[in-house]
């Protein structure tokens, strides 16, 4: 009996010294091959006395099983080690930079523009467009800014001819939409506008978003409600908002809308000129005279309009101090957005 135990011990000793798959393979042959130790034991089973045969055979088979299992186990261990070695030899320097692909960046002006647009679209405003080369009629006349009116001085106009201008604001879209659509109307009109002015705070082309809402029973209180909701979404729910009287020929009453300075939190700084407030929007109730131009009955309908400059909002939002950066298109600037 101890012969079998010895055999097992010898096998385990030999298995321990196996270093690779080749060693393992010869060990397998030595024990389990055609002339292997275990195979021979099984063959010589006939020499064992018949009464001992079943128990002896069982023992030999047990040890055969044991050896097979151990060999298989060792083989899979060795294979794993081998694979590991191979993969390690294939290793990359993972600290090298990835193959350069990068997404592009939207222009900061358009980034702010779509932010503004999204907020109003969620409030049920549609998006409209109008021509950038515009008739004097739409840009001024129908907005209650007649020729020879000092209000024309508020904007330096590029002229194409006596009747055609580069639009100085997005407000003409108001008239164009109302002309072809019956109330209720509720839309915004983003776009490029032009004024002949160029310095550190002015570029001859810039962007505005115009808005208009006309329906029965629209009040100044609604104007405040909608614009406050917009400004709180745009600048944060805690941002103070104030409305103060102003003048636009196409709205009455007119308002200038300020937010608490987002740079100094209202304490007063260079950007807000010490006032603690930043002018963000112009707004007002649509002047009945404009309704008359488009054929709306001012006794039946009322509405409000508003407009804002996108460059100004972008400059505040990103602390940009020179408006001209927007139009130099330096990739080092653009890539920051």
């Amino acid at each position, binding site marked *: 009996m101890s012969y079998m135990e010895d055999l097992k011990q010898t096998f385990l000793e030999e298995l321990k010294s196996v270093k690779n798959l080749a060693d393992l393979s010869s060990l397998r042959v030595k024990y389990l091959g055609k002339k292997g130790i275990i195979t021979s034991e099984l063959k010589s089973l006939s020499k064992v006395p018949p009464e001992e045969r079943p128990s002896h055979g069982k023992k030999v088979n047990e040890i055969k099983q044991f050896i097979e299992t151990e060999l298989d186990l060792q083989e899979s261990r060795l294979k794993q080690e081998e694979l590991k070695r191979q993969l390690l030899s294939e290793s990359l320097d993972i600290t090298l930079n990835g193959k350069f692909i990068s*997404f592009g960046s939207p222009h900061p002006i358009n980034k702010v523009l779509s932010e503004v647009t999204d907020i109003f679209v969620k409030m049920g405003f549609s998006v409209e467009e109008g*021509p950038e080369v515009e008739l004097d009629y739409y840009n001024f006349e129908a907005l209650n800014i007649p020729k*020879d009116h000092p209000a024309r001085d508020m904007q330096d106009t590029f002229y194409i001819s006596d009747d055609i201008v580069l639009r100085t604001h997005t407000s003409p879209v108001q008239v164009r939409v109302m002309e072809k659509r019956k109330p209720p109307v509720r839309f915004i009109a983003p776009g490029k506008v032009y004024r002949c002015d160029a310095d550190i705070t002015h570029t001859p*082309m810039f962007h505005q978003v115009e808005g208009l809402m006309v329906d029965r029973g629209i009040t100044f209180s*609604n104007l405040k409600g909608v614009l406050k909701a917009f400004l709180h979404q745009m600048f944060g729910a805690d941002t103070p908002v104030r409305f*103060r*009287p102003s003048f636009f020929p196409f709205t*009455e009453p007119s308002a200038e809308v300020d937010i608490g300075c987002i740079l100094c939190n209202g304490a007063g700084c260079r950007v807000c000129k010490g006032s603690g407030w930043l002018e963000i929007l112009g707004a007002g109730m649509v002047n009945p005279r404009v309704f008359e131009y488009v054929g709306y009955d001012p006794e039946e309908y009322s509405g409000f309009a508003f407009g804002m400059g996108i460059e100004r909002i972008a400059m505040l939002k990103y602390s940009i101090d020179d408006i001209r950066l927007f139009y130099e*298109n330096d990739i080092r600037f653009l890539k920051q957005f």
Partner: protein
Amino acid sequence: MRVPFEWLKEFIDIKESPHEVAHRLTMIGLEVETVEQVDSDVVFEVNVTPNRPDCLSIIGIARELSAAYKTPLVFPEHDVLAETGELDFNVDIVNVDLCHRYAGRVVRNLKIGPSPEWLKKRLEKCSIRSINNIVDVTNYVLLELGHPLHAFDLKTIKGRRIIVGTSNRVKGQGARIKLKTLDGIEREMPEDSLLIWDAERPIAIAGVMGGMETEVADSTMDIFIESAYFEPVSVRRTSKALGLKTESSYRFERGTDIKMLKKALDRAAYLMREVAGGTICGKIDIYPKRYKPDEINVRYNKVNETLGLKLTKEEIIDCLDGLGFEMKKLANSLKIKPPAYRREIKKEIDVIEEVARIYGYDRIPAQLPKATIMSQESRVKSQESKIKDNIKQSLLKSSFTEVINYSFTGLQDIDLLGIGEDDERRNLVQIKNPLKIEESFMRTTLMPAFIKDLIHNVSHGNRELRLFEIARVFISQKSEVSLAHRSSLIAHRKKDHELSAMSHELSSASILPIECEHLAALYYKEKSKALYRDDTPDFYIVKGVIEAILNDLKIYDYSFVRSSEPFLHPGQSADIFIMDSKIGYVGVLSPAIVDSLDIKAHKPSVIVMEIDIDSIIPYAMQVVKYRPLPRYPYIERDTAIIVDSLLEAAMLMKWLKSYSSDLIEDIYVFDVYQGENIPEGKKSIAFNVRYRASDRTLKDDEIDAMHKSLVDYILDKTKGQLRA
């Protein structure tokens, strides 16, 4: 408008601090932009909107504060006059419509000299330079009461006569009238401009500037002070035509207070006697056109409906009290007549604004409207903008960065691109008053701006550029273009704003240009050592992006055809077509153009493209329909053939696709090779064909036969041979 706080206090008893007053002014519509400490005083910089000429004076600001604080105005005791002598002076107003009132006074025996300190100081605080005591007094009264005055040297007025009339009336139509103004410039008077004349000649431009010959000089002893009401539009036209803006014209063109005019005259005379020791003589006052305001009916309920308030009748009246209105109180409305200094108040809404202003915008609650559900009218529009947004997102994801360039261009840009005389891109819209000559047109192509962006970036060491822009171009509709042609163009563009403008355009005979939206992009990479190799020619990278964008829009009927754009490399450029219409181009920027630019990089290769987005939108609006996935397996075959090296892949594909079989699912070219083992003038093209049937599993021998037949067909078409 600069307003010293101490001066303000002469008219109103203010207990509040300057900062509180500044805030109050801002909140009633007179925005105080800055509050500046000057010596022991405080000066406000007030932004007065064009509708409030009445606030272009100390008294005007004081009047507003009086209404806001419900505190009475105080007029200092200074109007008492000791008049002596008669005024043997003759004033005629020829154009009563342009001059509603004309008053004047003579002051004699004045001693012209420097002003006293208090006067100089006040003017200084308002940023007005002291000249002499007489001129200073007229300026002082201008600031204080808002009424412009003019002082003439009495002895220079010929014939003791003043005539107020236009350049035409007095001298006859078309005469050239010249006047040397106070600033020493001889100016030709515009037609219809209102002038002040003596018996012989013009001596001042009414409301704009006086003449030099009648100017008050050091030797002057007796003066004539003019205080008049000139009609705003007339003054504005004259001032604009002359390009001459003065403190005086600024106020007249906005509207002055016809009733304050006399007070201003007396105040000036009084002050001149104070500071220059003169004797005030009698006055003349011709007032042919009186201020007669229309009565305005203001309904209480309309006030509340407009503002969203529930004010009582009394509250409304309380707001308007103190604004100088004449009010008749009826049960449901007010009948209002505004004072002479508020001529812009004409309609009910103007009065409602006054109520809101004095009540305080901050006291009106903010309330979201009860909105009506909107109809679907803007659906097509939003579909369009969604497509444009998709295109933009595709470009951003393809690593292109967005730029915005000015819409301006110049002839030099069009010339640089070598654009031909008959090209539509020469139909430029010209700006009459450009800021720069190189920016005096609206652009018809986005490309020149990209060349500028390229130069700017490369000169700042930016070595990799992938830029794009989506913006409008402007094609002028020259008058030669027939109306029919125009309508068809407009209809083609399907731009409804152009359609709606038609009525106004036709009536005014002014034609707006066609505006359409373009996409342009530029790709530039400096040839530098790179960590990972990629030999794809840049042209194919940009072409690939265009294909991806079109495919994303479910547009497949596009083709690339060799381009003849003069600014592109003739061998490496293509025009892009959808069906039969050209929608744009892509290609390597012509090396000749690149050489002419001052770019310090070695042989830079620049790929550009431009597409008319508006023209592809109709193709993109198709609805996607699902196709079931195939249920049976496919069989693939690869084949390489040797063909003439000039044969383009598109031609080969066209032939391959012309082989009719329901079993061909897909064909693509996967290799093009020229060189070793391939004869001179030939190239090898390898393509893959995938076969599949929709109703059964294909058998190899069936496909072997079919593929052989396809290959025979294509070898026949291409006159090629199988590559061994």
